[in-house]
């Protein structure tokens, strides 16, 4: 007999094929156990045939497997498992003992009903396919996809940071040019103010001297001839000389007061801009706050009364022009949050090694969903054209550069408080880099 019968051929292939093939009857007794199964499980067919599957392999997921086999029997249909959800049915060594990659052979299984002539399912056959290579390739692919995604996310973050940095450059350039403009204007105004001031001084002394002369003339008034006296009396009456004498002095005094105020404003402008200074220096924060209040007085005087609770503050090493910008932001925002009329309270003090400045308003407050985003660049709740959306994010990064922190506490309907903590010394590394 040199030829194989069809069923012998089938049996041979089922035994030798490089796929695990086994079958169980309704009581889970093994009725087929091919060579693949024998080799990988190290249980020969002779040892296991006729045995209960779960007796030979107690580690199998019994409840699940029983349900699966029952399902095949009841539906007389195929069932499947995939390594993606269930890595393996039998824990077999894989084909990569040297190069490795996974803990055990990855398997796809097919459960097929074995039917008799009447179409009844009398056994269930299971094939176990080794898909370790596919699984490893799949996982490597998934890992590199994840890596690509991670890099993309990082790039997005970098692009965001770049945009933010650019905004800050724009903003600080804007501020620097405003500062230069202010300083330039202040300088230009100082000249005329100087000579007007000195002229006024001279004018005041001339007026005094004129008064002395006028007094002398007044003493001699009665000795004048009648007709001349009457003419002069009429002139004196015409200009209301007594009032004029009184008013002249106060006009000169008021003008000098006015000039002093102009000088203060010019000085504030110069202090506020500090000529675009970016070096940290020792500064009195109260002076910074007062200067800023003077600059923004016009913005807030119709909305809010400003209450100052200044504590004891040491001098702080900082870039005053930048902090002025932060204070201005908080004050103007506070005033804008107030609908009719309210109060802006500025509190300062020390806490441990740090100083703090708190700006509280009695405005509308910030809703929680907005609160999360207020330090984001370009986030604004103001109408188009009113705000740049950069104020708070710039403030945030200025405070960060100073090694401090800024926190916000807001209750809708009650108001908002921004509190800034600053170290007394400017961070050394940042000041070296700047």
């Amino acid at each position: 007999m040199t030829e194989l019968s069809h069923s012998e051929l089938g049996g041979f292939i089922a035994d030798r094929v490089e796929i695990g093939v086994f079958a169980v009857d309704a009581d889970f007794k093994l009725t087929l156990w091919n060579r693949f199964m024998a080799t990988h499980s190290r249980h020969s067919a002779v040892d296991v045939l006729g045995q209960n599957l779960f007796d030979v392999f107690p580690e199998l997921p019994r409840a699940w497997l029983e349900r699966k086999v029952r399902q095949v029997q009841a539906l007389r249909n195929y069932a499947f498992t995939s390594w993606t959800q269930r890595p393996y049915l039998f824990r077999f060594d894989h084909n990569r003992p040297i190069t490795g990659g996974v803990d055990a052979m990855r398997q796809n299984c097919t459960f097929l009903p074995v039917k008799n002539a009447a179409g009844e399912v009398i056994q269930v056959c299971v094939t176990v396919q080794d898909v370790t290579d596919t699984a490893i390739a799949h996982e490597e692919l998934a890992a590199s996809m994840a890596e690509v995604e991670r890099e993309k996310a990082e790039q997005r973050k970098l692009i965001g940071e770049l945009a933010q940095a650019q905004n800050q450059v724009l903003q600080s350039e804007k501020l620097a040019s405003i500062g230069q403009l202010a300083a330039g204007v202040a300088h230009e105004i100082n000249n005329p103010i100087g000579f007007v001031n000195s002229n006024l001084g001279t004018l005041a002394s001339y007026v005094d001297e004129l008064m002395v002369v006028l007094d002398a003339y007044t003493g001699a008034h009665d000795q004048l001839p009648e007709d001349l006296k009457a003419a002069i009396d009429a002139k004196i009456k015409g200009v209301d000389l007594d009032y004029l004498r009184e008013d002249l002095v106060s006009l000169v005094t008021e003008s000098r007061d006015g000039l002093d105020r102009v000088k203060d404003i010019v000085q504030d402008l110069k202090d506020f801009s500090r000529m675009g200074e970016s070096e940290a220096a020792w500064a009195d924060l109260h002076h910074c706050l007062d200067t800023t209040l003077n600059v923004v007085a016009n913005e807030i005087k119709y909305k809010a009364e400003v209450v100052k609770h200044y504590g004891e503050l040491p001098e702080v090493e900082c870039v005053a022009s930048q902090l002025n910008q932060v204070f201005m932001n908080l004050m103007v925002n506070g005033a804008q949050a107030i609908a009719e009329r309210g109060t802006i309270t500025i509190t300062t003090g020390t806490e441990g090694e740090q100083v703090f400045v708190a700006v509280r308003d009695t405005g509308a407050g910030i809703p929680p969903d907005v609160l999360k985003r207020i330090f984001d660049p370009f986030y604004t709740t103001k109408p188009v054209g009113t705000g740049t959306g950069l104020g708070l994010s710039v403030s945030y990064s200025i405070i960060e550069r100073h090694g401090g922190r800024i926190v916000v506490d807001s209750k809708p309907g009650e108001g908002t408080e921004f509190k800034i903590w600053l170290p007394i010394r400017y961070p050394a590394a940042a000041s070296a880099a700047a």
Partner: protein
Amino acid sequence: MSTALFSEDQRDALQELTNIGMGQAGASVAAVLGEFVMLSVPRILVLKPNLIPPALGRIVGPEKVTAVRQGFHGDLRGEAVVVYGVAHCRELADLMGYDEALDEATERELLLDVSNVLVGACLGGLAEQINAEMGFSAPSLMATEVEVASLLDVQRMDSPCALFVEVNFSLEKRSFACHLIMLLPEDQILVLRDAIDRFLASL
């Protein structure tokens, strides 16, 4: 929407055969799930590929879906798609008798398993009615939690038209429901038509 590939008689016969097949399927699914299964009368349409997504949308509604596909081959060759509303997906664990909370892999295995049961039972039932031999390939996840419209890529379908057989499943005591859609390419529609003719001739 044309069903011109079928005569009225053929369409009625197909509807009836599918219905009988589904009825048997319902009984065996009920045996596996331990719950009484309600099946809709199958609805049969011959559709151009670009009309399939809107037809799916009409069946499922606006909610997001998870879908499983399974190929079948043999005397009839095509694909079955089981579509679950996202909310129903979570009821599966309970349905299949899992008490504990499931991890994602187990949940997906369950989804594939239930889909396999439904597809096998329904298509097996139909195959039996028309005396066709049919085998199944392993089911696979098509998409999870996506819009119905993005489920099928009609650009990639090269058959000019497809037979769209829709059956809706629901369970008597639960709100669980899903939709099974059997898709046959045009050449297979002709095969099916011949099988129906043979069936009609044998009556």
